[in-house]
């Protein structure tokens, strides 16, 4: 068996140094709920495991002065659920994170891991895309930002450069009358992988939708930002005609596969249904605030 090393650096610079030096043999360990399963099954045989949870910037939750949130990429879903403010401001992102696996998994699984694992069905990803979150990346060449929707490159692949680490998510401040929601279709009630997942974030002012973003998961090689669906919602009263137009935009964006979880036809139809339901929940939350 090849030599394997475990490192738990305390600073981001150390983590990046160790990660970059080990090249393609290195794996980042955040919650480990994907990595350890992949190691056990032999899909991944890392030479170096870089545990980033001792890097303070990668595990905290911080509400910024302007009302935005900075979430360390390795923060667990349970830590997000226990935060006094996060779920009030971003209920959709939180419900997406808290649909991932069991309570045991939520105690470890992180939004950064969910995004970097590159699954088209990752639950937190459509909600993060809808939120307009931007991630901070840091690598040997320095720090840069990337929209969440630009991170996935395909199943199991990201657009991070070699040696780059996803440090944190930056969620924008919320204007009054804003909220979000996430719904997924699974054949069970719990502990399953999305057949379709839809995240919607919107702002409602005097009964009119003034801003919207739609993230759509498990219907293409990557999670999608569906701008035509958002356009259909914006400037409407979220009436049935606008919802149907947005649902049609979601159906049109689907490029799904047939698999044991759902057929192509089923996924496309469900994408439209979920868009309507998710929008209704987000709108209700936005107007109740």
């Amino acid at each position, binding site marked *: *068996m090849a030599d*394997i*090393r*475990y490192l738990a650096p305390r600073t981001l610079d150390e983590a990046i140094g160790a990660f970059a030096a080990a090249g393609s043999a290195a794996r980042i360990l955040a919650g*480990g709920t994907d990595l350890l*399963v992949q190691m056990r099954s032999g899909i991944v045989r890392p030479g170096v495991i870089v545990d980033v949870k001792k890097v303070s910037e990668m595990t905290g939750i911080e509400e910024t002065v302007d009302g935005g949130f900075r979430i360390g990429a390795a923060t667990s879903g349970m830590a997000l659920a226990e935060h006094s403010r996060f779920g009030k401001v971003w209920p959709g992102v939180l419900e997406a994170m808290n649909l991932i696996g069991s309570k*045991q*998994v939520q105690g470890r699984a992180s939004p950064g891991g969910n995004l970097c694992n590159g699954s088209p069905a990752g639950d937190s990803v459509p909600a993060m895309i809808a939120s307009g979150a931007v991630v901070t990346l840091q690598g040997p060449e320095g720090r840069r930002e990337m929209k969440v929707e630009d991170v996935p490159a395909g199943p199991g692949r990201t657009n991070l450069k070699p040696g780059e680490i996803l440090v944190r998510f930056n969620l924008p401040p919320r204007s009054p009358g804003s909220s979000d929601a996430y719904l997924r279709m699974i054949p069970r009630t719990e502990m399953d992988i999305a057949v379709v997942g839809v995240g919607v974030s919107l702002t409602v002012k005097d009964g009119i939708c003034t801003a919207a973003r739609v993230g759509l998961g498990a219907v293409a090689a990557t999670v999608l930002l569906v701008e035509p669906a958002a356009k259909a919602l914006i400037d409407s009263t979220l009436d049935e005609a606008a919802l149907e137009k947005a649902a049609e935009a979601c159906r049109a964006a689907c490029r799904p596969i047939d698999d044991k979880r759902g057929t192509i036809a089923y996924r496309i139809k469900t994408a439209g249904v979920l868009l309507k339901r998710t929008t209704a929940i987000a709108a209700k939350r936005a107007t109740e605030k």
Partner: protein
Amino acid sequence: MAKIHVTTTVNGEPAEYLCEPNETMLDALRGPLGLTGSKEGCSSGDCGACSITVDDRLVCSCLMLAAEAEGHEIGTIEGLAQGDKLHPLQQKFLEHAALQCGICTSGMLVASDALLRKNPNPSEEEVRFWLAGNLCRCTGYDKIVRAVLETASEMREAAQ
């Protein structure tokens, strides 16, 4: 391959062990620490038989590296009873016969204890969702859920 020396706390007591970089916390518990109450079911985080707490947060010990325990507080099923006195959950599991083969039981108890510490008054639905990550192939869950609800009720009364 150099082993890693880990210093941690297990059930309130200082503990140390040597582990390989790719060994899991479950390996360390059942191996060098000799705590075999945590069970290995699926080794992929689906069954919950290896449930432990890390800094009071419920996790699967099969999905955690042994090296990660450094500086943290680990809680296992062995820490539930106080000497010979069973924890109310353990007592209630016996009374309700909320177990048959027993392989899921330690995980069920650790998970239920974590729930009641967080929420002393859970609804039946909350108990069922909380325990969704603990699989039992014998009981059909009903007796387990009833045992947890009844324990919660009695612990609330006792606390008054």
